[in-house]
């Protein structure tokens, strides 16, 4: 077999960008936002568990070497030490991958930071399906794990603008927080809408008569793209971005759901325990009796592979979203 006839293989990468070709992006928005926040608040410190370069924390470490603490590949120490730093009045931001934050060191975040309600801010890289490395690195259930933790605020930002605006608000808020980090070259999407990030608030990005999308994280970007694509099919889609998963802006979301429109949730997370179930429980609690269709990852350990392949396979791609909505509308 000649090489000329061998198709080029799609390969997986640890850090894969989900930005579309030619899309506007910002580099390391978290790192730069943390530096900016730290210039205004001398209590902010940073720490990581041997993943500074991979969570954009290195930007902060370079700007404030005396305020950066390397904890080594020791996530329990990372969270315990973050709590200890907060006990002395500092405002730590501690970064690792979401899988390690949620699965490996849960007890330390829970008891050392959440129970005493300390201002400890956890920054988790590779949330949901943002790496092709397989289940060891895919934090498909991080929100499900963390939603049960009292006092913990959970933020699932869409883009660089969300991250830039969220960081100072997380620092200013009391109690522990968990930020689902998008790192590297992160798309800038929300600047084209009349939008600002407000901790604890969902925002309507666009109105629409036929369908309402409730989305968080990078899936808000896909929701907006899908809404554009569905317009070509004469389907008018509203998009509501709900980046704060906990505490959830039930009032805004329920007001948008309490219509005859097809309701769809979109999240970069397992269908178990994330945005869909947050919305579903709000709907049931309010007695709305409204059907909600989830676009989410399946309750499975996912394949390794190239990110575009996997997003298509598991239904997160624009194409799959459009097809699902059209099928629902019959």
């Amino acid at each position: 077999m000649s090489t000329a006839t061998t198709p080029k293989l799609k390969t997986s990468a640890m850090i894969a960008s989900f930005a579309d070709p030619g899309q506007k992006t910002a580099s390391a928005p978290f790192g730069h936002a943390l530096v900016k926040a730290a210039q205004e608040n001398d209590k902010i410190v940073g720490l990581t568990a041997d993943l500074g370069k991979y969570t954009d924390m290195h930007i902060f470490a370079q700007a404030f070497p005396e305020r950066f603490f390397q904890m080594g590949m020791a996530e329990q120490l990372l969270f315990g030490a973050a709590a200890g730093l907060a006990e002395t009045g500092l405002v730590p931001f501690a970064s690792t991958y979401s899988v390690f934050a949620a699965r490996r060191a849960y007890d330390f975040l829970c008891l050392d930071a959440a129970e005493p309600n300390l201002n400890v801010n956890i920054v988790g890289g590779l949330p949901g399906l943002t790496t092709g490395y397989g289940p060891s690195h895919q934090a498909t259930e991080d929100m499900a794990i963390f939603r049960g933790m009292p006092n913990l605020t959970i933020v699932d930002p869409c883009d660089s603008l969300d991250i830039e605006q969220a960081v100072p608000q997380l620092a200013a808020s009391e109690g522990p927080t968990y930020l689902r980090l998008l790192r590297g070259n992160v798309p800038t999407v929300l600047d084209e809408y009349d939008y600002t990030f407000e901790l604890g608030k969902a925002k309507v990005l666009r109105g629409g008569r036929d369908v309402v999308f409730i989305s968080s994280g990078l899936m808000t970007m896909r929701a907006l793209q899908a809404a554009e694509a569905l317009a070509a099919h004469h389907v008018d889609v509203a998009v509501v971005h709900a980046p704060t998963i906990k505490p959830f802006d039930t009032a805004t979301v329920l007001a948008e759901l309490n219509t005859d429109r097809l309701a769809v949730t979109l999240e970069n997370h397992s269908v178990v325990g994330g945005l869909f179930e947050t919305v579903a429980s709000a709907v049931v609690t309010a007695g709305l009796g409204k059907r909600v269709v989830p676009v989410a990852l399946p309750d499975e350990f996912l394949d390794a592979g190239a990110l575009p392949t996997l997003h298509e396979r598991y239904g997160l791609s624009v194409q799959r979203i459009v097809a699902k909505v059209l099928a629902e509308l019959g």
Partner: protein
Amino acid sequence: MVSTQEITTRGKASDVEAERLARVEAAAYRIRHHALNMGEVQGQGYVGQALGAADMLAAVYADQLRFRADDPGWEDRDRFLLSTGHYAIGHYAALAEAGIIPVKELETYGSDDSRLPMSGMSTYTPGMEISGGSLGHGLSIAVGAALGLRYQGSGSRVYNFLSDGELDEGSTWEAAMGAHHHQLGNLTAMVDINALQADGKTDTVLRTEPVTEKWQAFGWYAQRVNGNDVGALLAAFDNAAAQAAAVGRPSVILCDTKVGRGVPLLEDREKAHFMRIEEHEWQLCREQLTAGFEGKAAR
């Protein structure tokens, strides 16, 4: 030839040391007495551990720790972090001895709506710095506290109390490495080695020895002492203090202690995580404790 002046000075120094020793031993006696009273109200609890660790707690609160009894959150205080949450009974007794909580309140230990839950929590009790109990957390928090205090230019020291059972936890060793890496000379760990864990003797549950060599290998200044010998404890603390520096080696005092120490009835009883004490035995325990303390004081 030694001058009269020198002899007088030495005499004064030894008087000061004798007074120091007597003060800490008396504090340890009262901590034990409080613990027995608390155990009697509750009818159970970790009395054996409290009796074993009383000398360590007395050395901390009556000699080492810088604090303000009327202002437990005083910014410049030294921090004492109880990692071993179920030792709260001993810690509450020490907090009462230190005047941070009223002695009268000790009788509420483990009761509904009490500020003194069975396992120590920072959100409940003045002077309780952390919520321990999920074992192996304290030293990691202590690393962060020591880093934070040093970064902010504070001269405060951080003391972390942990038990030999907590040496089973990997997190303890993550923190031990972190403290050495960051040269936390303002951190002192004290390990209660009572050789007893929930499921039995430590060497049958998970062998942790050689403990001293492990800490040394992790870069710590390690001393091993009889944790029920107040004089030895104070000497170890003095050695640790001589080593202390904002940037330097963290220090660990490994304290071999005896569960039930100070009450012969309990010292000789079969050791258990929850020590069994009959209703009629509490008064006998107190009498034995007092007789032992007064006998020692008389000598």
